[in-house]
């Protein structure tokens, strides 16, 4: 049974107000996280998964801004906090984050310990021997030798550095830890062992975890629930087991099919043609329709609602109970997809016009 709700996100929208227009990086994100539970957030680059993480910490950098919605973190409304309040009250204490490429986060001129005690010093005023004792305890918890406290970052391997960062994120006993691509830079063997440790820590410390990655195969092992994101939307949310076994949304289906199976000889890998859309001017209707192999006429016009299908929330017209739409399903069309449309989509994305004809490019020197 899930414990109490530690995080309740409702209709959260975060946009970036750039000179090209408003980038709708995150729209209408709604989900709950319970104590001791883990959520995996997956999607391609630029789908808004990191924006979601930064929003949860109330740390969206300008020109980004949380436009609407609420984040209830154990009774605290995160979106109402000022930068100073957020720093004092929630970050590290309630929710902490292990960033992508965390290994490069440490400064080479101080020892690991010097950097590790900082959260203790500033948040709890714990210094000296006491701080050292706590740090060493956490280092051991992540399977490191406590002697690492006195070493310099360059003396550690990538895996060890990653473990130090994980230990630091746990120091103030937060309820939630967010891992943004925690193992992408690591080798498979090290990755598997760190993932093992995270599974164990979650049980031992009873903390909730949020994993953000583009690699669904990692999430299958560590998350209870999965949120699949596409172009700023959570398109499917539900139990990881159900989603892997029976993906509902066509996007999820393709993402799972793209994972190569090491046990079988396969001739071709599945992939999703095209590139994710430009979020200044996302496609009309369903944002996935230009790349969707099951797209229908209605998908071009109408934004799908979120339907509850066997306990999984899916944002797709395929599951509509509206008869007009259901009928339309039969008239579904083959999505005419080729690189030309992708190229056009991408051009729009960057707001770049085709290079003007008439301007002759400089010939190469021979």
């Amino acid at each position: 049974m899930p414990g109490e709700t530690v995080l309740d996100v409702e209709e959260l929208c975060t946009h970036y107000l750039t000179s090209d227009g408003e980038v709708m990086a995150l729209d209408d994100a709604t989900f709950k996280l319970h104590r001791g539970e883990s959520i995996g957030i997956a999607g391609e680059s630029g789908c808004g998964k990191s924006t979601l993480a930064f929003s949860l910490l109330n740390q969206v950098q300008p020109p980004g801004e949380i436009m609407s919605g609420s984040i209830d973190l154990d009774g605290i409304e995160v979106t109402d906090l000022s930068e100073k309040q957020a720093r004092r009250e929630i970050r590290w204490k309630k929710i902490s984050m292990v960033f992508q490429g965390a290994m490069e986060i440490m400064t080479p001129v101080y020892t690991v310990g010097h950097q590790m005690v900082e959260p203790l010093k500033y948040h709890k005023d714990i210094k000296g021997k006491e701080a050292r004792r706590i740090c060493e305890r956490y280092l051991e918890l992540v399977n490191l030798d406590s002697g690492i406290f006195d070493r310099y970052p360059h003396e550690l391997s990538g895996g060890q550095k990653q473990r130090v960062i994980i230990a630091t994120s746990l120091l103030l006993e937060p309820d939630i830890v967010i891992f943004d691509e925690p193992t992408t830079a690591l080798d498979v063997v090290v990755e598997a062992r760190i993932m093992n440790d995270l599974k164990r820590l979650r049980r031992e410390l009873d903390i909730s975890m949020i994993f953000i990655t583009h690699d669904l195969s990692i999430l299958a092992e560590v998350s209870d629930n999965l949120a699949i994101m596409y172009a700023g939307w959570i398109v499917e949310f539900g139990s990881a087991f159900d989603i892997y076994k029976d993906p509902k949304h066509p996007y999820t289906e393709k993402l799972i099919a793209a994972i190569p199976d090491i046990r079988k000889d396969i001739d071709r890998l599945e992939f999703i043609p095209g590139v994710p859309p430009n979020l200044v001017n996302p496609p009309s209707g369903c944002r996935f329709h230009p790349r969707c192999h099951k797209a229908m006429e209605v998908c071009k016009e109408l934004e799908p609602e979120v339907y509850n299908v066997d306990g999984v929330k899916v944002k797709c017209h395929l599951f509509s109970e509206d008869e007009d739409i259901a009928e339309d399903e039969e008239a579904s069309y083959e999505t005419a997809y080729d690189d030309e449309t992708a190229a056009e989509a991408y051009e729009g994305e960057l707001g770049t016009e085709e290079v003007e004809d008439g301007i002759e490019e400089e010939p190469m020197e021979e």
Partner: protein
Amino acid sequence: MPEPLLKARNLTKHFEITQGFLQKLKGQEKQIVKAVDDIDFDIYWKRNFSVVGESGCGKTTVGKLIMRLLDSTDGSIYMKGKDITELSGKEELKAYRRQTQIIYQDPFSALDPRHRIRQVLEEPLLIHDVGDTREERTDMVHEALEEVRLTPPEKFLRRYPHMLSGGQKQRVSLARAIILDPDFIVADEPVSMLDVSVRAEVLNLMKDLIDEEDITYFYITHDISTTRFFTDYIGVMYLGDLVEKGRVGDVLDKPLHPYTQALLVAVPEPDPDRGRGVKDVPITGEIPSGTNIPDACRFHPRCPHAKKICSKKVPEEREIEDEHYAKCHFAGEIEFDMDVAK
């Protein structure tokens, strides 16, 4: 068995670490990194060969040796029967590199940001003096773009690399590699920086080109899960040595060396019926430094099956099954079931 396209024999590359003034003064012994240490392998025509291993195992060094971007310390590489480690002089190397091309890991930095795609692709033609007129070259550039499915080519010619997505950039790198019609391509982690969905697209394309363009790939990767789809043979590298090699299906289904077994257990399991629990990753510690390679079997300090002999005697390479080699004293005797281990 046909004659291999590429044959590496006793291939070795050692790097000397530069000493500081004081170290020289003290007469300290020079440290040597054994990046590639006496390895043999054969690559057959249109039968891709992949090399897997952790960072620092020397797999990229092998790729660079094949390209002659590095000179080997010892051993030879025969390409179509000719020893390429003995090529000397600009002309010979230039001719060799026309047949052998490389694709790098990072498509974002492999392309010059100030060159349009046309210039990127035309450059190899100019260097190798292919195509007499600008029109002729333009046709070749068009053709290359079409081969990597960047169509219509006119749309891409005038773009700069930053106007392309990661997958498209990697396809431009691929077009640049095939434009000179090579026989052999070294692909160094070509898809590891791409999203999973795009990865599949680029690998499919590279596979199509095997037959369309008669290309053989040397595929360097740390991601063992893509090797089965893309290659026919696989070599597993550990600390500069090929500890196991064979047909990819044989090696992945019946790994003989404990290191290969550990790599396979560590692959993330997408099926929630299997890998939900804590995995039993059999090896501990991290890959040691190349300056300090353990004696005898170089894997023994991390090996779960290590016995006395492993720290005493260097294991010979043995052919356990047809075309399936391993360097381990106990190869063939260790029970392994991937599903149990997970």
